[in-house]
């Protein structure tokens, strides 16, 4: 294919992509979810077997690897689509089930109902009446979702630019280049109210305007794909599932601010995202969608992929810029903001992956369409990686304003194993946790901050009764402290001191004045740290102290960890009323500390027991209870 030199060339390519899709639809198709998560669950083997089966049956069929559709809890996923029929998804596919699915469904046209999860009917396809499979939009996991940035993830082949073009990909770029001035593009993004999805929530259009008005040239466009929060994988899924949407968003931003060169800064821990981005960049370059005189206009832009080297702080924009410049990833004070003086001291625009991925849709459908989704002050959708103690873990995109309860209980399906919800952490290690009483908080930038957490980049970790809030805060603090770059003292020292105090509390050596000390350090870190890493490091501890103070006091006063996590601060006891003497706990105990006859309540030898918790996990009858290690009362200890 030659480079596109005009909009007429573009129309040809668009037609060609549509034809290719139409032809593809005349053959049966197998889709396999091949994101990092799918591959970890065994999609590689599934694909190999499916390929082998297609060959064995000598079948004319497409085998298309797709990105992540978001249902991590159902991986590996395999979809079958027969010409003219809806696409049917099979979940938790085991290698031995693949030949059966291909034989019955692909060859025989019979859906294997017990293995099928749902179907996706597109306009013009026949409804399948014989087997009442739920539509994707009716599944609890998808019902409340609105997929804008994730619209293609899991549905198209991320390694084929024509798959993207067939779904109106690069249409927004064509619209911008042929009918809009840079000012009009900025106006449109401003009117949409889009706020940066990296976490801070700054108005994207205003950021672009600052950069556009900056007189110096050259200017740079940078995509922050250094997603470092533990438990977050939104950006990775977009880059793996729909990399062209990010490239298109960056092209539009570059046109708006007047940049001719850009960087995607992606963490090295995402090899698949890097591979697919590289393929996407090469394809876009081959068609002339990147390069000199794009579509015959005088707009030129090219992009370079830059691999991070493992530093959480490089998600901060000035540290990220330092890293591209080949220095230690240490932030610097702002102002000047990157829009005035960024990469190589030139005006630079840094946005998150999700912000760029949303941009083409805003341009294509208009600001008004976008601002109708979500809330007035936080328009559009929010993307979360829902993880932890929740039934349906995965990647979701929801309209802003949805409540935490809807996300956790309706989309997430609630807490597994009949356990109790305890807290939800949003905003990753720099966010905060919210308790049950805050579950009706609407999810948007301002409400979450008001409630005591932050929106962050999109990690959402749900924890149940078995999580100790001292240990939980300590975990995030350990992470943030280890990732402090060490440049400014409040962050470097404050995090360390706070971690020492928390470790003391977790060992049962804390005092009540320690809690005041934490608050004192937190205030100083917030006020005096150079960048968001230091300013927000106290967040998880402060939120935990605000909502779970009693648990901290229990550690300090009663030397009791009610969740049964902190070593030496609890013991396991068998509740003789609940114990049926089933013997399930005897064998797994690594210490042979449990004794008892069948059908009679068992006992735990407290001297041999090492509190590993294996018995607590295996017991189905709630017969293993967590009790204070020493039978002391709060009064005797405090007195």
């Amino acid at each position, binding site marked *: 294919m030659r480079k596109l030199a005009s909009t007429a060339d573009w129309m040809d390519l668009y037609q060609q992509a549509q034809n290719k899709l139409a032809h593809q639809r005349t053959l049966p198709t197998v889709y396999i979810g091949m994101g990092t998560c799918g591959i970890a669950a065994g999609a590689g083997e599934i694909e190999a077997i499916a390929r082998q089966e297609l060959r064995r049956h000598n079948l004319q069929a497409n085998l298309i690897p797709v990105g992540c559709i978001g249902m991590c809890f159902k991986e590996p996923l395999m979809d079958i689509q027969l010409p003219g029929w809806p696409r049917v998804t099979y979940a938790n596919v085991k290698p031995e089930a693949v030949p059966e699915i291909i034989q019955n469904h692909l060859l025989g046209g019979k859906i294997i109902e017990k293995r099928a999860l749902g179907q996706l009917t597109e306009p013009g396809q026949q409804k399948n009446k014989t087997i009442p499979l739920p539509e994707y939009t009716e599944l609890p996991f998808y019902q409340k979702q609105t997929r804008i940035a994730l619209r293609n993830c899991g549905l198209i082949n991320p390694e084929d630019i024509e798959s993207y073009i067939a779904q109106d990909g690069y249409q927004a770029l064509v619209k911008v280049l042929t009918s809009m001035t840079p000012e009009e593009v900025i106006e449109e993004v401003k009117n949409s109210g889009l706020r940066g999805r990296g976490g801070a929530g700054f108005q994207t259009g205003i950021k672009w305007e600052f950069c556009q008005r900056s007189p110096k040239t050259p200017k740079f466009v940078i995509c922050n794909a250094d997603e470092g929060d533990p438990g977050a994988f939104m950006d990775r899924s977009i880059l793996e599932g729909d990399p062209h949407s990010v490239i298109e968003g960056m092209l539009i931003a570059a046109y708006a601010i007047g940049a001719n060169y850009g960087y995607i800064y992606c963490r090295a821990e995402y090899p698949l995202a890097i591979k697919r981005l590289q393929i996407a960049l090469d394809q876009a370059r081959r068609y002339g969608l990147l390069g000199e005189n794009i579509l015959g206009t005088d707009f030129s832009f090219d992009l370079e992929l*830059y691999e991070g*080297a493992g*530093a959480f702080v490089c998600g901060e924009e000035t540290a990220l810029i330092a890293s591209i410049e080949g220095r*230690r*990833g240490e932030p610097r004070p702002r102002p000047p903001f990157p829009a005035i003086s960024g990469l190589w001291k030139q005006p630079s625009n840094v946005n998150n992956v999700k912000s760029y991925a949303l941009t083409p849709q805003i341009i294509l459908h208009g600001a008004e369409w976008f601002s109708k989704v979500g809330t007035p002050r936080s328009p559009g959708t929010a993307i979360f990686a829902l993880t932890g103690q929740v039934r349906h873990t995965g990647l979701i995109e929801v309209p802003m304003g949805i409540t935490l309860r809807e996300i956790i209980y309706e989309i997430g399906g609630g807490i597994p194993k009949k356990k109790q919800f305890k807290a939800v952490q949003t905003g990753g290690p720099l966010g905060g946790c919210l308790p049950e009483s805050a579950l009706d908080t609407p999810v948007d930038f301002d409400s979450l901050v008001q409630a005591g957490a932050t929106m962050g980049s999109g990690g959402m970790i749900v924890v149940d009764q078995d999580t100790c809030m001292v240990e939980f805060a300590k975990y995030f603090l350990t992470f943030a402290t280890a990732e402090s770059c060490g440049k400014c003292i409040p962050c470097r020292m404050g995090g360390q001191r706070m971690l020492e105090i928390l470790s003391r509390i977790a060992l049962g050596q804390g005092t009540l004045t320690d809690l005041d000390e934490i608050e004192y350090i937190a205030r100083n870190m917030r006020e005096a740290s150079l960048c968001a890493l230091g300013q927000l490091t106290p967040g998880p501890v402060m939120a935990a102290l605000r909502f779970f103070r009693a648990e901290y006091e229990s550690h300090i006063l009663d030397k009791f960890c009610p969740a049964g996590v902190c*070593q030496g601060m609890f013991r396991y006891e068998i509740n003789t009323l609940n114990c049926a003497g089933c013997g399930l706990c005897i064998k797994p105990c690594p*210490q042979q500390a449990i004794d008892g006859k069948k059908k009679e309540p068992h006992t735990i030898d407290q001297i041999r027991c*090492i509190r590993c918790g294996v018995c607590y996990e295996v017991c189905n009858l709630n017969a293993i209870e967590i009790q204070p290690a020493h039978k002391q009362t709060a009064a005797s200890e405090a007195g």
Partner: protein
Amino acid sequence: MSEETCDLRELEVLLETFQGKKYPVIPILQKTQSLYGYLPQAALRAISEKTGIALSQLMGVATFYAQFRLTRQGRHLIRICDGTACHVRGAPQNIEAVEDALNVPAGGTSPDYKYSMEIVYCLGSCGLAPIAVVNDQVYGKIDPKTFVEQLKKLE
């Protein structure tokens, strides 16, 4: 850091590919590491001489980012859990057996660079104690004799 000899010819070829551009520090170090498996001091010196980037800047960057290693690793990474459950189930005996049989100190690398061993604390699989993870594969309920045999079989 001990000075080791390493073949610098490949590095020169590598640096040629960056010529003409403003030398990008991190990509150069990443490519150098994939060449040698770590960043040998001699290579860092050679990069500094060739590119004019101060050795102090190279060291600063190499020590800042988690990805970079300044010592050579073994081909196989053995991580043995010595958390409480594994400890009481015999992790110390396993560690000792591996140290003796394969000549790899805990937290170090064997002289033939075949193995590196790390001690970790609780991998969350106490029911399979004692456990170890070798090159991302989990080995449960290990005992000194069979575990050492399994490790010896690795290429």
